[in-house]
């Protein structure tokens, strides 16, 4: 009895194991089938072309929650005779995936880098010759030559070009605020940091939404000292952009008094409750939510976000009115705004996956075609009359933001160049504040604070910069929250210096004076 029972159990387990194995098998078999089917379709599509479509993979940042539908991509593929696979990586953990792929030697043929700091991290590998140098090839590509020289120069490593850039306005920073609240309280757009402080106070204390209770606050900020509010406000105080010159020496921004004044300013805002109390741990989504749902009245960041914020806010409160503004003077009576080096993202081509020159030329050929209005308009705006319409030679996206998020917006991540160079439509904005924000981007160019270290190189900064920066970021938050005093902050700066910061200063200055 006992024995047969055991046998039964064992038999049962084997059957189960077999089933699991079979299931796995089936799954892979069926997905093979699907892939095979796709291949057939595609080869039929391009049957008339003489050349096989060139297949390659791009790794790019995904800014929407979901991987997009391929409608737009198919159009691009057809126009460029390619077969593109895009590895979408959520922007939030792009660095991890990038480093992991690099460490395991599995980078695809074309790799977008995310931003300037990831580019700096890869500098070592670039110098080691892991990526294709592009200078010798660009003259074969008419459209790629249009890329701006001054921006390209910002991405050179030892004078050589390895990347194609994705253009961005030099500075999009400014404030978005509740116009209806300001009107009700009789406030004008703030032009000095004092007026700004007053606006934050009034939005908190003077019941701007006429609810009769104390349920609003001034500024909504998030866990980001750079793209959140801090760096922009620091610019108003004329703090240098990352690095600044004092008595002929380059020093990091946090060694300047202006940086300290900015911290004091934020500390006052925080103490008085004019800013969300948990801002150092608030996500971007939550930050915007405070603004959209009418809890907060001021948002500091990219002014272009006014469209997406408005379209959500108006569903909650149809009477909401927004406006954008850039010019805020600091105590010195001067307005300044930090700038980026003209690119948002960069794309590089690893030698490990692009084995031959021939393959590189094909990929560059693709990006060359991308830089024509015909192709780029697909990537940026989608399909005409489905995703956008053309008014006065400009593109007006349809109102259905969900559709755009699903089918178009993600592909903007593979743009190279900018409207000026790749010829795509500029945007047509029927929402007035958005049009204004575009003008303010241009206005900002008169007041730029540039980062003097962009063309410089420091080995220690490349290796330890990110880790060391954390010391300062943490100390800055702690100071604003009142958890450390000036002595504590100075100690953090000393700590930064002793762990390699002094070396960074020396290395940058050695480069700088040369």
């Amino acid at each position, binding site marked *: 009895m006992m024995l047969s029972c055991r046998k039964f159990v064992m038999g049962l387990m084997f059957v189960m194991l077999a089933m699991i194995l079979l299931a796995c098998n089936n799954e892979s078999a069926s997905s093979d089938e699907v892939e095979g089917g796709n291949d057939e379709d595609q080869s039929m599509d391009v049957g008339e072309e003489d050349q096989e479509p060139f297949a390659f993979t791009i790794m790019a940042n995904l800014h929407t929650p979901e991987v997009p539908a391929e409608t737009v991509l198919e159009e691009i593929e057809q126009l460029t005779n390619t077969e593109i696979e895009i590895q979408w990586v959520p922007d939030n953990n792009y660095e991890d995936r990038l480093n992991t792929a690099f460490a395991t030697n599995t980078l695809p043929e074309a790799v977008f880098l995310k931003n300037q700091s990831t580019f700096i991290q890869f500098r070592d590998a670039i110098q080691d010759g892991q990526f294709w140098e592009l200078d010798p090839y660009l003259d074969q590509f008419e459209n790629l030559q249009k890329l701006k020289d001054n921006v390209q120069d910002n991405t050179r490593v030892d004078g050589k070009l390895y990347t194609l850039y994705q253009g961005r306005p030099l500075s999009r920073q400014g404030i978005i605020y509740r116009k209806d609240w300001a009107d009700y309280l009789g406030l004008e757009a703030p032009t000095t940091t004092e007026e700004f402080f007053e606006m934050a106070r009034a939005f908190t204390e003077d019941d701007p939404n006429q609810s009769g209770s104390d349920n609003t606050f001034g500024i909504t900020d998030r866990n980001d000292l750079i793209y959140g509010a801090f760096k922009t406000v620091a610019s108003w105080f004329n703090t240098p952009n990352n690095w600044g010159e004092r008595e002929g020496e380059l020093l990091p921004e946090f060694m300047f008094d202006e940086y300290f004044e900015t911290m004091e300013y934020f500390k006052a805002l925080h103490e008085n409750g004019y800013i969300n*109390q948990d801002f150092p741990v608030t996500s971007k989504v939550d930050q915007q939510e405070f603004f959209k749902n009418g809890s907060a009245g001021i948002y500091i960041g990219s002014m272009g976000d006014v469209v997406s914020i408005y379209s959500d806010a108006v569903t909650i409160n149809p009477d909401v009115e927004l406006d954008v503004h850039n010019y805020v003077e600091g105590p010195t009576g001067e307005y300044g705004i930090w700038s980026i080096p003209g690119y948002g993202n960069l794309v590089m081509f690893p030698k490990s996956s692009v084995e031959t020159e021939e393959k590189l030329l094909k990929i560059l050929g693709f990006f060359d075609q991308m830089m024509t209005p015909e192709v780029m308009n697909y990537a940026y705006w989608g399909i005409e009359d489905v995703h956008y319409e053309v008014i006065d030679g400009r593109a007006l996206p349809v109102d259905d933001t969900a559709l755009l998020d699903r089918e178009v917006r993600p592909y903007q991540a593979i743009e190279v160049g900018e409207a000026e160079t790749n010829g795509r439509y500029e945007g047509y904005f029927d929402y007035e504040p958005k049009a204004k924000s575009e003008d303010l981007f241009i206005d900002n160019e008169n007041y730029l604070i540039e980062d003097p270290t962009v063309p410089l190189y420091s080995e220690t900064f490349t290796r330890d910069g990110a880790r060391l920066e954390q010391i300062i970021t943490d100390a800055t938050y702690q100071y604003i929250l009142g958890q450390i005093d000036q002595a504590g902050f100075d100690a953090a700066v000393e700590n930064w210096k002793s762990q390699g910061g002094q070396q960074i200063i020396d290395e940058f200055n050695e480069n700088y004076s040369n």
Partner: protein
Amino acid sequence: MSSIVVPKLKAKKKLSAVDRKRRRSELWRRIKRNKMIYLMILPGIIYFLVYRYLPMYGLIISFQDYKPYLGITGSPWVGFTHFERLFTSPEFWTIFRNTLTLFALQIFVYFPIPIIISLMLNEVRHSLYKRGIQTLIYIPHFMSWVVIVSISFVMLTLDGGIINSVLESLGFAKINFLMSAEWFRPIYIIQVIWREAGWGTIVFLAAITAVDPQLYEAAKIDGANRFRQIWHITLPAIRSVIIVLLILKIGNVLELGFEHVYLLLNASNRNVGEIFDTYVYVAGLQQGQFSYSAAVGFFKGVVGLIMVVIANRLAKAFNEEGIY
């Protein structure tokens, strides 16, 4: 502590060569006889080889200046440089202390709780009620840390979180739970208890059901009350289970839940919250220092191994079976 006296184990005898040979052939015979069972263990062995032993090959990079494009075979050797950097870095002792503190919380605060809960559940008479509670307390285990931490965040935030709202309406000052060094550890361990305590009762409850009911009857006749029964029967009966689980727990000494801690970290609590796991992640994957973070991970593994060996020795010293 217990009233059951376990006879002392006899010291191991040295085996003679003949004995050993005989034993080996007997082992083979047993394997042949139970070949089905050994076959079934095979996937497990393969799993450990492939996922636990093969990756150890990668530890080599902690002695190298690893460059991905040169690979393990091509990267230059640097000896103990990365270990030196770790041991001399000012962060090392902070991280070490934080790791051990969270570990101690796990052992001394979290570990007894599933035992207490299972003893309590065992005393519940109404079986439907008992099973209902069991199911309810299992649920949090199936939520990811992201969910647990997000829920806590919504409750604890200063900007409209329910706990601070209640505190405020009762006339107390708001407490900055999220951005404080003092609250990090309590929040950590409460979340661990919240998520895992219910799930942790399973093994103990199973062990308790195996206790012979006659023992309870006998104790009742002798006049033992419920508390006495727990103390003298239930607890001693599950003692070996408790010890095995404790050893396993100690083996995971440095697995304090990377995801969990990483989600909780911020500028104000990094000093008490940064542990080896989060440090490895930040240094290795976010900042691309592959060799250095491999060295940190290696060190962590060695500490874990030492802890298991010590715990096992201790268990044997108390005449329990241990895990090997």
